């Protein structure tokens, strides 16, 4: 479940800022919450949440080099495979469970989402939208699987085995009785409005509960 997207981006003042979807999640995590970040990478979001929100942050990450970086910065991160290891955690052990840019890599997205909402009171899920207009155009024009900033590798190398669109995800949530508390859409590194999101959003963040 490794994700290949850097968790930080270079901001206007040339300072390292959190990627926009992570910054959005960070802004909506309550103070002092217990947080599990699934697929936490090097722990950039966890570190931000710990420093600014006083949260009790834990992480899970499959890539040992990323885990080592996170532990070396003093974070509690377990090397593990979310497709299997989430089952260990007790019910409602966390206020918030976060799954960023990882759902599309899950072996069983349905199982993973159920686990997130079992472990956490709430879940934040972010994913790239395969129906983004540039993707559609690329597929239409070139007739080949698009390779873009958010889906940066060829079809045969991609960890993304369950491509989805914003509309697919909405249907999926409805079918599985998941409540949408809030949702945000992004394109070109900026937040955009919600109208025609299935066309216009490059990626999305959903805040969920059950």
């Amino acid at each position: 479940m490794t994700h290949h997207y850097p968790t930080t981006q270079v901001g206007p003042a040339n300072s390292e800022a959190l990627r926009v979807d992570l910054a959005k999640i960070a802004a909506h995590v309550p103070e002092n919450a217990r947080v599990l970040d699934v697929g936490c990478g090097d722990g950039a979001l966890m570190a931000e949440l710990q420093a600014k929100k006083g949260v009790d942050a834990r992480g899970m990450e499959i890539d040992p080099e990323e885990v080592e970086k996170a532990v070396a910065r003093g974070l509690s991160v377990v090397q593990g495979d979310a497709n299997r290891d989430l089952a260990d955690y007790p019910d409602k052990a966390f206020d918030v469970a976060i799954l960023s840019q990882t759902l599309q890599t899950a072996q069983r997205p349905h199982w993973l989402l159920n686990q997130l909402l079992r472990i956490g009171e709430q879940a934040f899920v972010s994913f790239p939208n395969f129906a983004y207009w540039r993707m559609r155009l690329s597929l239409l024009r070139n007739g080949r699987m698009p390779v873009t900033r958010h889906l940066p590798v060829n079809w045969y190398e991609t960890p993304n085995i369950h491509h989805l669109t914003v509309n697919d995800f909405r249907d999926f949530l409805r079918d599985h009785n998941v409540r949408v508390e809030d949702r945000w859409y992004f394109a070109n590194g900026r937040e955009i409005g919600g109208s025609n999101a299935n066309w216009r959003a490059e990626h999305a963040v959903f805040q969920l509960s059950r």
Partner: protein
Amino acid sequence: MVSRPTLQVQSLRLEAPLALDCGRVLDNVTLAFETYGALNDTKDNAILLCHALTGDQFVASQHPVTGKPGWWERMVGPGKPIDTDRFHVICANVVGSCMGSTGPASAGADGAPFAMNFPVITIRDMVRAQIALLDALGIERLHAVVGGSMGGMQALSLAANWPQRTQRVLGIATTARHSAQNIAFHEVGRQAIMADPAWAKGDYYASGQSPDKGLSVARMAAHITYLSEAGLTEKFGRRLQDRDAKSFGFDADFQVESYLRYQGISFTDRFDANSYLYITRAMDYFDLAEEHGGRLADAFGKASDVRFCLVSFDTDWLYTTADMRDVVHALNAVAAPVSFVELSAPYGHDSFLLDVPALDRVVTGFVG
């Protein structure tokens, strides 16, 4: 064990008798220990370091018998990952060992060495004695308890049984239970010692000889389990020792034979065979889940506020990543703050003692 003058080591006699898991009580227990770095006024900067099977308290200072540097000088010292400019590091020789703490070579009530009358001890007994040492030193809560291999077993045992005594637990290349394979290798070692006529049913201290041959074979067998096949192949391959051709005899033709023989023989200079029997037994009896009703998560039920960091190595086939994952899963089940990483290193189980820069970074980050 060669005869040697009485060791001059720092030690403390425990005031209270030590009640052991086997039901017996050990009076007048002495614990030999070393400390590095100053204890602060609030006594909250102490790190208890637990040594492995054949280790001892000389973590970061010269060994009084072998003259060699401390066994973890790369990790412990001023400015090192376990920084003695900031932390007060305590390492005690475990009960049952032979570097100044009470063990089978110590005198019992009748003045003669215990030998095989020494009670069978457990990992928890070793920790119990160290808790008594902390009591005597006035240290209520450790900054961390740290250990590799058997030291990690002690760290886990401390977390399970005395969770209020530490803020952090760092266990490296360790396990929560000895596997059938672990026990099997230890049994080979014990049988080698007991098959040596000089062992004399353990009663060899006054005889002027000691079961060096048996202890040496035990060490040789165990040493193989501390290395990886790839490591052995890289270090020795099939290369011959100081000769151009095979001798068609049973000398140490191969470098790996010569190396193992040296490891075996030099070990007998510093270790007591009976201590080897008792400590390997303690490790074999170790099963943290069994101690707590059969479910490992229940062992950590009161430790959910303790921070854990667990590290395994991909080439360690003695205490594997799978063993470590069992501990991680148990800690997740009680939602304890836990870090776990499998590091890549070529040296097998012994990686925790060797040059693995990633381990330094993890230890630095976790100890804080």
